[in-house]
């Protein structure tokens, strides 16, 4: 057992923390208020390798590991959960399936741009009537000999409208149910592909969440990922890893809320003493700190298993479940400890509490995580 980060991981934390402090934090409140996607920071992140942390150098990646990736998402989300989401959806949900399931040709064509070349990725699985229940896909892809023809729509797609490359799931053989789903790489600007409604959300307001519309969208034959029918497998394995991204995001939100709360309590005086000197409040902070630490250990454990190619699915589900609940608990407490000020937009905890909620919902709700965990105990 070794609970010490490697030198590389420590440097990644320092570097992303510096970047987040200087570039992300100063605009976090503003982009939340204005619902503005931070294109300028995404471009900087691409240049610095933040969008390609856990991929080999030969494809343009930074050559890092998944712990460094988790640290990256944590540090970004610590000051701005929207920015964390943008990076996590791009890395876990678009780059990863192309890297893990794509052909050499697909990897060479798409990864260099995505990992460090200024391009952004997205993932389209969810539909109005099919979230985690992916087998209910309505979007279909027909084999037209020379190309695939996509028709249908996708909902709640993170990075929608700003992404250049989309991993899209569609039915190629409805009779086969979930085994009839296939995955495709669709480029922005493809004929018949457009961006639909942009969602107005409670939190992560600076991230883009949109509908994707496919109307006779022609996708080149070679853009299928894996074989026809591999889609469900690809989606589920992608989400196993995606949970690490969301868990790290939840951890970052909790840590960020914790840090600003501790600083606030040291400064705020009531009844002749500082909040930090009041034992009842100290106990709240001790609980917050303990949960954060537990969440961090669970995440690193799941990630370490992933890096060792062990079956980490239930572990990433447990980490995501616990980290998301921690984010809600810690941010709610953080607002409480700030009192009236915490409820205003003058303090970041208000935004952090709104941002935390999504981590209990996307990439599998907490209930779905429990299904995953339970099925590892009782079988499917």
């Amino acid at each position, binding site marked *: 057992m070794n609970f010490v980060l*490697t*030198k*590389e991981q420590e*440097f*990644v934390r*320092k*570097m992303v923390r*510096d*970047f987040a402090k200087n570039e992300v934090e100063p605009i976090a409140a503003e982009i939340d208020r204005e619902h503005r996607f931070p294109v300028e920071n995404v471009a900087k992140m691409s*240049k*610095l*390798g*933040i969008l*390609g*942390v856990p991929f080999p*150098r030969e494809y343009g*990646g*930074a*050559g*890092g590991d998944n712990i*460094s990736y988790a640290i*990256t998402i944590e540090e970004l989300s610590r000051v701005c959960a929207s920015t964390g989401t943008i990076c996590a959806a791009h890395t876990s949900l678009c780059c990863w399936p192309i890297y893990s399931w794509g052909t050499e040709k697909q990897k060479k064509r798409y990864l260099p741009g995505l990992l*460090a070349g200024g391009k952004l990725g997205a993932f389209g699985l969810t539909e109005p009537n099919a979230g985690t229940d992916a087998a209910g896909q309505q979007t279909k892809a027909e084999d037209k000999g020379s190309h695939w023809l996509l028709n249908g729509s996708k909902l709640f797609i993170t990075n929608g409208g700003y992404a250049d490359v989309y991993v899209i799931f569609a039915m190629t053989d409805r009779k086969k149910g979930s085994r009839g789903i296939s995955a495709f790489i669709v480029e922005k600007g493809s004929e018949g592909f457009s961006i639909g409604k942009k969602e107005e959300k409670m939190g992560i307001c600076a991230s883009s969440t949109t509908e994707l519309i496919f109307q006779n969208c022609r996708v080149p034959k070679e853009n299928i990922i894996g074989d026809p029918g591999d889609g469900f497998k690809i989606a589920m394995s992608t989400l196993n890893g995606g949970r690490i991204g969301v868990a790290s995001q939840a951890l970052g939100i909790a840590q960020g809320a914790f840090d600003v709360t501790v600083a606030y309590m040291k400064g705020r005086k009531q009844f002749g003493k500082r909040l930090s000197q009041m034992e009842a409040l100290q106990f709240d902070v001790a609980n917050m700190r303990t949960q954060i630490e537990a969440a961090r250990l669970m995440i690193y454990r799941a990630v370490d298993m992933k890096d060792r190619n062990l079956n980490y699915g239930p572990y990433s589900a447990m980490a995501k479940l616990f980290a998301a609940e921690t984010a809600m608990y810690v941010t709610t407490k953080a607002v409480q400890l700030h009192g009236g000020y915490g409820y205003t937009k003058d303090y970041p905890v208000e935004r952090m509490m709104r941002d935390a909620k999504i981590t209990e919902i996307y990439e599998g709700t907490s209930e779905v995580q429990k299904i995953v965990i339970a099925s590892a105990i009782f079988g499917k």
Partner: protein
Amino acid sequence: MTFKIIVCAKQVPDTNEIKIDPVTKTLIREGVPSILNPDDANALEEALRLKEQYADTHVTVITMGPPQAKDMLIECLAMGADEAVLASDRALGGSDTWATSNALSAVIEKLGGYDLIFAGRQAIDGDTAQVGPQIAEKLGIPQVTYVQECKIDHEMKNITVKRALEDGYEVVKIKTPCMLTAIKGLNKPRYMSVRGIYESVKSDIKTWGAKELGLDADREVGLDASPTNVYRSFTPLPKGKGTTIKAESEKETAQKLLVGLKTRHVI
């Protein structure tokens, strides 16, 4: 011909967090994070920008310090430097600025050949601003301190710099090889890249001791060879609160200010 740049850097305690031990009067370094000295980051950034402009440029970062100073060199490599050298030896411990510039000059001479040397104006722990200029003197090359802007011609021979003064700047033309010391206003240092981190942690950083540098531990480097002795360190008392002048109009405010300054014989 490769254009060779040497950057002198120092690992320093983050002064935002530093305190002085009230008994021993020395800096408390335990638990204080170490960082790349800010002005040195500007020096490195300028070297890296030249490297981006002229492909055939080689940037070497050198430092003197304990073995932990390697971490700072890794950071410099992860930012984009090509090579890093650490001068580290017990015999170098306790060196003042004179002894330090002896050691760094020896490192530079051992590296053999250079076209340009950058250093930060000063380090945030000692604040002397002496090491850069001393190195230039010892190497016998011209120097410009407090550089706030730097332009080099296409032949890489003539550099035009803006040298910051208290109330303006002067434009100085200088020929390579030379030493320039950088100030904060020169540029905005870049971040490490994630790829750079993974490449540089595993890279080989040369470490040279006093013997390898041909330095006399009694007369050139180390505590005994250092002419400077620190008599006392202390935390300066905070200045009292300033006076705020408020009056009905701007004119009245200015009048009050003038009267105040005159009664104190400032003007």
